[in-house]
């Protein structure tokens, strides 16, 4: 039964992907059912940007649903919520008025909340799941409150709840009004996207949800926050106000660095991927911020380039992150745990999963010739051209973004060496890992298809980037910043930079095969002899002697200890009869989350204190309550 629901969702995904691509390439349509809900009813409108995101959701839903058939096809729990989740995500980009948007947004959040609680309902990790669900619900509704506030203000000031009317009326509003609305909308959308410091729900919710849901949450749901930001900044509240771009640049840079720093020290495979999503959302926000800055500085060509880079990374991240989450789910399914310190040696037990995870890891680390490299390269090229804006303050923000992004790129490589190396290589560190079995066929099909999509997105860069620039041109009209030259080279801003992914892929392939071929021709390949690993002749070599995930991250914990603020705890149990004999030593050095400690904990304390004060009002005495009713009646009579 559940398998049927998942298959139908996969079909829905195929249909949506087709409709989305049609929309990107110019098909326009709209649908309006005025009576179904108050405040202007249900309105759907397809345009280029909506088409891109609908296509993205649809295309991501196909492998995720196929994967779900194998992962959760036998359980009834969660299938309907999943279908509602995908459906709601398809409606969000198409929404044409406030009510449709908010309803679809809330449905999406509720459905994913139910799916996040799956861990509690399955009885696996009830406390963690319940806490994750609660934080997720709070953050998503706080974001929704900001969104509603912004949208309703805009409705009040422009007189209409339709987005199309906002596009027309936007320029007539004052800068202050637009900035206020933008700030509210940004808070709401950034909370959904997972920008620091509104990211706290992401590392809690994504690991506890089942893997196909995590794939969609990380891959496409958080991108809908980016969609909202783009719509708000470039469509509803155009023209762009100068401080919006640098604000997003800063949020993006901080998210990129903070995300990857937390990912590196994590030992839970799926939480590492969740933090890495924050990192990649940071990269997208940097691209978006650059687009807004260039748009405000009246440089439409560069703004288009930045927008294309951001949208390309949105698509790429959806591809490789869903691949990674699916592979991580397969690891959890086969080995029974997500803790990297209990995994290892899975490349021999789960070769398909390992190969797919490797492709995803190479892609997300931004290594050639896969898609992560191309979109990061494009983002860098955009940032490196910031000198055309003659303002030193803006140049400084861009320089910060460049340095931050470069650091995040390097750290991402380290993070995924750890994620792949500790999980899949060497010897298994637990019995569960030693007995792991590979994923069933349909899960493998889904993962391999996504891996091929990553490769296709990279090799097809010369077609995809111009299409994305055209999509962006519907928001920021301007000349196209990219041209395609010989050997499918992508030329950026005339001769500022160029890249030909097929040439790089071909060169790499030849370079790797060349020494092998030469050695074969010269017949210099004596057969290898198998022996144990060199361990200084030690008599016993076990998995206890391997590097663990925590050990691997040790240099980073030391270098960035001002950020992690680890608290060392050392408990030594001595023998009762003599303090010179030690029975047990317990050492803990956990990293702390400064955002939680410096922002949310004080905020929670203030809220609780305020709530305690106002609770005085609820005294429990009916006489006092009657007195309140009387006072309210008097006040209303006086005011009216």
């Amino acid at each position, binding site marked *: 039964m559940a398998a049927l629901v998942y298959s139908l969702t996969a079909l829905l995904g195929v249909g949506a992907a087709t409709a989305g691509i049609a929309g990107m390439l110019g098909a326009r349509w709209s649908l309006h059912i005025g009576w179904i809900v108050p405040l202007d009813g249900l309105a759907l409108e397809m345009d280029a940007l909506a088409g891109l995101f609908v296509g993205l959701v649809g295309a991501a839903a196909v492998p995720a649903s196929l994967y779900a058939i194998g992962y959760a096809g036998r359980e009834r729990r969660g299938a309907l919520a999943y279908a509602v989740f995908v459906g709601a995500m398809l409606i969000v980009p198409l929404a044409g008025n406030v009510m449709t948007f908010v309803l679809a947004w809330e449905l999406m959040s509720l459905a994913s909340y139910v799916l996040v609680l799956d861990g509690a309902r399955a009885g696996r990790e009830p406390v963690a799941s319940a806490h994750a669900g609660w934080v997720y619900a709070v953050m998503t509704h706080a974001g929704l409150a900001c969104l509603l506030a912004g949208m309703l203000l805009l409705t009040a000031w422009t007189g209409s709840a339709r987005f199309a009317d906002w596009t027309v009326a936007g320029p007539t509003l004052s800068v202050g009004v637009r900035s206020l609305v933008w700030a509210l909308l940004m808070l709401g959308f950034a909370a959904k996207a997972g920008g620091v410091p509104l990211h706290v729900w992401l590392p809690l919710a994504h690991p506890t949800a089942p893997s196909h849901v995590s794939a969609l949450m990380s891959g496409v749901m958080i991108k809908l926050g980016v969609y909202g930001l783009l719509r708000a900044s470039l469509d509803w509240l155009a023209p762009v106000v100068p401080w919006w771009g640098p604000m997003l640049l800063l949020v993006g840079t901080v998210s990129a660095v903070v995300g990857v720093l937390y990912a590196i020290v994590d030992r839970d495979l799926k939480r590492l991927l969740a933090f890495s999503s924050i990192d990649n959302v940071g990269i997208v926000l940097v691209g978006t911020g650059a687009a807004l800055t260039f748009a405000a500085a009246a440089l439409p060509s560069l703004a288009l380039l930045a927008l294309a880079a951001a949208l390309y990374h949105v698509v790429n991240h959806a591809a490789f992150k869903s691949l990674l989450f699916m592979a991580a789910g397969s690891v959890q399914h086969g080995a029974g745990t997500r803790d990297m310190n209990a995994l290892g040696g899975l490349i021999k037990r789960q070769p398909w999963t390992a190969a797919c995870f490797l492709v995803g890891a190479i892609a997300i680390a931004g290594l050639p010739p896969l898609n992560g490299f191309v979109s990061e390269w494009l983002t860098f090229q955009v940032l490196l051209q910031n000198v055309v804006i003659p303002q030193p303050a803006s140049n400084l923000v861009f320089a910060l973004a460049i340095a931050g992004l*470069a650091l995040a790129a390097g750290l991402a490589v380290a993070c995924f060496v750890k994620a792949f190396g500790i999980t899949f290589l060497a010897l298994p560190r637990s019995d569960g890992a030693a007995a792991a079995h590979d994923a069933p066929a349909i899960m493998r099909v889904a993962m391999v298809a996504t891996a091929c999509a990553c490769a296709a997105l990279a090799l097809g860069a010369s077609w995809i980037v111009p299409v994305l620039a055209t999509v962006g041109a519907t928001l920021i009209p301007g000349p196209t910043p990219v041209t395609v030259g010989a050997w499918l080279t992508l030329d950026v801003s005339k001769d500022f930079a160029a*890249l030909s992914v097929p040439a790089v892929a071909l060169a790499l392939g030849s370079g790797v095969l060349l*020494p092998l071929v030469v050695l074969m021709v010269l017949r210099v390949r004596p057969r*290898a*002899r198998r022996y144990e*690993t060199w361990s200084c002749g030690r008599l016993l070599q076990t998995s206890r002697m*391997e590097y663990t995930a925590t050990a691997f991250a040790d240099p*980073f914990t030391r270098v960035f200890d001002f950020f992690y603020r680890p608290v060392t705890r050392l408990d030594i149990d001595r023998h009762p009869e003599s303090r010179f004999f030690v029975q047990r030593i317990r050492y803990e050095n956990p990293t702390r989350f400064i955002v939680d400690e410096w922002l949310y904990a004080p905020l929670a304390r203030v809220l609780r204190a305020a709530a305690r004060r106002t609770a005085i009002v609820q005294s429990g005495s009916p006489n006092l309550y009657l007195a309140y009713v009387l006072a309210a009646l008097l006040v209303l009579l006086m005011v009216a």
Partner: protein
Amino acid sequence: MDVVLLALLQAAAVALGAPLVVGTLRTLKARLVGRRGPAPWQPFRDLRKLFAKTPVVSDTTSWIFRVTPYVLVGSVVVAALATPLLSSRPPLAFAGIILLMSLFLLGTFFLALAGLDAGSAFGGMGSSREVAVAALAEPTVILAVFALALRANTTNLGGIVERVAAEPQLAINPAHLLAFVAFFIVMLAETGRLPVDNPATHLELTMIHEAMILEYSGRHLALVEWASAMKLLVFLALLANLFFPWGVPADITPLAMLLGLLALGVKLVVLAGALALLETAIAKLRLFRVPELLAGSFALGVLSVSAVFLFR
């Protein structure tokens, strides 16, 4: 057709020149401490001997271990083809610094995985340290070349070479010199030279790069060592040609390429001499002082970018 010839010539120059550079460095370092030292072409003999040995492969490892030497060589050769070595229009003419650094990171990624693959503590330690150093060196490289790219108005390496060559007074420009020092420090970190890593150490606890290759033998070891020598050569060539690009021809004729080769040779000898002097004179830094060194080079990179804006 010329491009193919240039590609072959450049690949051959790098493949054959790299062991020579490493050998020359060793000889110079030996002479500077009063030893006669090995001949400059000793690495060729070492490689030839290694190719004939039977590799011993650990049964803990997987296919990643055996694929890594080829990936390393492949990525470094492609990086060499993307560098303006013999001409300012290298075979992969579209390349910029980001492609180059990403190619090196690809090699580092696989080598770090190979270090973890054998399941020994040494390998894990080497991998962990190597990726930490590589990650911390990234921002400085991007910023240092950004300083050059700002002035040249292109991130294409060949373009930078041509436009810097057109203005000889840049050699004493503060931004240029600061970027050179920053890039030099990063070169030491990325290629595993003193003071970041001692390539001749036998103490595993002091190793960064060597620890990852302790498990390799025979032809795999030969390929890994060759790739690391080629990486050193490419970095030195980048230092030479990006910052002092006089003598790098633009057109691809045999005479021009020969002249380019000679000019590169001279610059490499000077750089190798400076590197030998530096390595003989200073001691290796404690591992957890290396981030301070890299942070210092990052500060220099930031200064060089600011200097470009100031002296515009």
